[in-house]
């Protein structure tokens, strides 16, 4: 399998504090890779390392099998806030980058079409909404048909409609543009809807990585139960692992986790049962489990 990003032992410290700690990332080509972690976990530092904006203290980076310096032309990026020239129009902003990349003028219309910003391209960016700025930033990152897009918190500050627009856009890109996406975010639900692969980073270290479906399948099946809060203790005594609160529980067993067995147990104990359903493990759960293991270690 071709790897878009491979890092080995990637390490970077700031003032003695390790921001990225021996990170071994493997991002397959054409994946939508959710790069997840809390604020301050090391996501942005990693993206800055991948873009060559900062230097690693140790380790190596290979993009599509090549060293970073040789593969830089294949990367497009949107780092944190969409940094644009407010006094220029959308089209002029794109033109600046187009010229620096030595691209044909038609490239501007192509990327404006992808993000659906043709109508506003002649307006000054200072008057754009945050959603439009993010789309323009994404259009700029797509100039030159990069094979890899690094998007750092692309939904930051967007309203629900803006988030949904961005999500739809990101979901389309791998097929339409033949591009690998690395999307860093602390919004697990959002990433879960578009990602094919995820990497979970905590305190600079990669605590979990792989195809999302495979990660969800780890740890056995789970059952979501809406019941009384006290039911958690009953299920725990029966050997189940129970997470959640206020009566909305996520139940997993050491062995088979059959809904009928759980239902029988709760009814027998006299707990109300409002809803019971098999469920896939959510990213939030995966993240909580992975970081709990990390903290315990």
């Amino acid at each position, binding site marked *: 399998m071709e790897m878009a990003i491979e890092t080995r032992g990637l390490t970077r410290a*700031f003032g003695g504090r390790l921001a990225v700690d021996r990170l071994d990332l493997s991002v397959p080509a054409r994946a939508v890779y959710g790069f997840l972690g809390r604020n301050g976990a090391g996501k942005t530092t990693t993206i*800055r390392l991948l873009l060559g*904006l900062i230097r690693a203290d140790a380790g190596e980076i290979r993009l599509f099998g090549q060293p970073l310096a040789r593969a830089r032309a294949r990367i497009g*990026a949107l*780092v944190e806030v969409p940094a644009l020239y407010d006094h*220029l129009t959308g089209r002029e902003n794109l033109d600046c980058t187009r*010229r620096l*990349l030595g691209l044909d003028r038609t490239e501007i219309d192509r990327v404006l079409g992808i993000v659906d910003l043709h109508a506003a391209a002649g307006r000054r960016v200072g008057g754009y909404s945050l959603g439009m700025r993010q789309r323009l930033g994404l259009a700029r990152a797509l100039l030159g048909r990069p094979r890899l897009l690094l998007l750092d918190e692309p939904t930051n500050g967007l309203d629900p409609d803006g988030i949904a627009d961005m999500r739809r856009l990101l979901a389309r890109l791998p097929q339409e543009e033949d591009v690998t996406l690395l999307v860093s975010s602390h919004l697990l639900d959002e990433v879960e809807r578009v990602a094919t692969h995820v990497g979970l980073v905590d305190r600079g270290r990669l605590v979990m990585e792989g195809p999302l479906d495979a990660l969800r399948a780890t740890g056995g099946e789970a059952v979501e139960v809406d019941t009384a809060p006290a039911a958690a203790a009953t299920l725990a005594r029966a050997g189940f692992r129970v997470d959640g609160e206020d009566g909305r529980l996520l139940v997993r067993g050491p062995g088979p986790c059959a809904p009928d067995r759980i239902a029988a147990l709760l009814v027998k104990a006299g707990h109300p049962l409002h809803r019971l359903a098999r469920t896939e493990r959510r990213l939030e759960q995966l993240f909580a489990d992975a970081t709990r293991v990390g903290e315990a270690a």
Partner: protein
Amino acid sequence: MIAAVLVELIKLRRSLALMLVVAAPSALCLLAFAILLDRDTPLPWPMYADGTAAIWAYFMLPMAATALSVLLAQIEHGPRTWDHLLALPGGRPRLFGAKYAVLLVLVAAMAALMWIGTLAGGAVADGLRGGALLTGEAPVGALAVRLARMGCAGMLVCLLQLWLALRVRSFVPPLALGIAGTLVGVVAASAKHGIYVPWLLSVNMLSTPERAQVALAMGTLGTLVLLPAMLWDLSRRERVG
């Protein structure tokens, strides 16, 4: 490099920097025009032209270099576009070199406006007084050469100001340096070693030919030496966030 310069020129559209290029020499020429009109006695053309050029070299050129370099740098610092620019393929020195080239273009444009404004202001004022205000021939060529030499000598100050303006995100340090340098220049103008103050190099174009030659050499050679140092320093710096 040409593409990077063109990009810098695009960024000047609707910018304060472009307004300053027109406003600063225009204000100075209008002032000189008003002072000239206020005179009761005739004045030789070269003296009028040299007086205007002196104010340009003492105050306007260093202050304009300060303000322009700050404005050019803030085009990137303000919206935090460095991350985007420095992550692009292609050498980083071209980005900083293009900034410097555009700063020089802007200073040259200001000098050209000074030349036009000085000659036009003098001619209009003289015309309004029936040709009795300025004596002799207008120093068309001599003023052009003088302003050009001032510009060349001022390249070093432009470089120093831009270096600091690009290096720090805040506009306060480069502004403080420019104001301090200009003030030191005024105080040190008559000092023996004043010739070595970078902010005074342009003023020395009005001095003795020997002193002017030394100042011109310092301005141009100093630029040639320090330009690679600036490009190296700015290009190797990390963008931490």
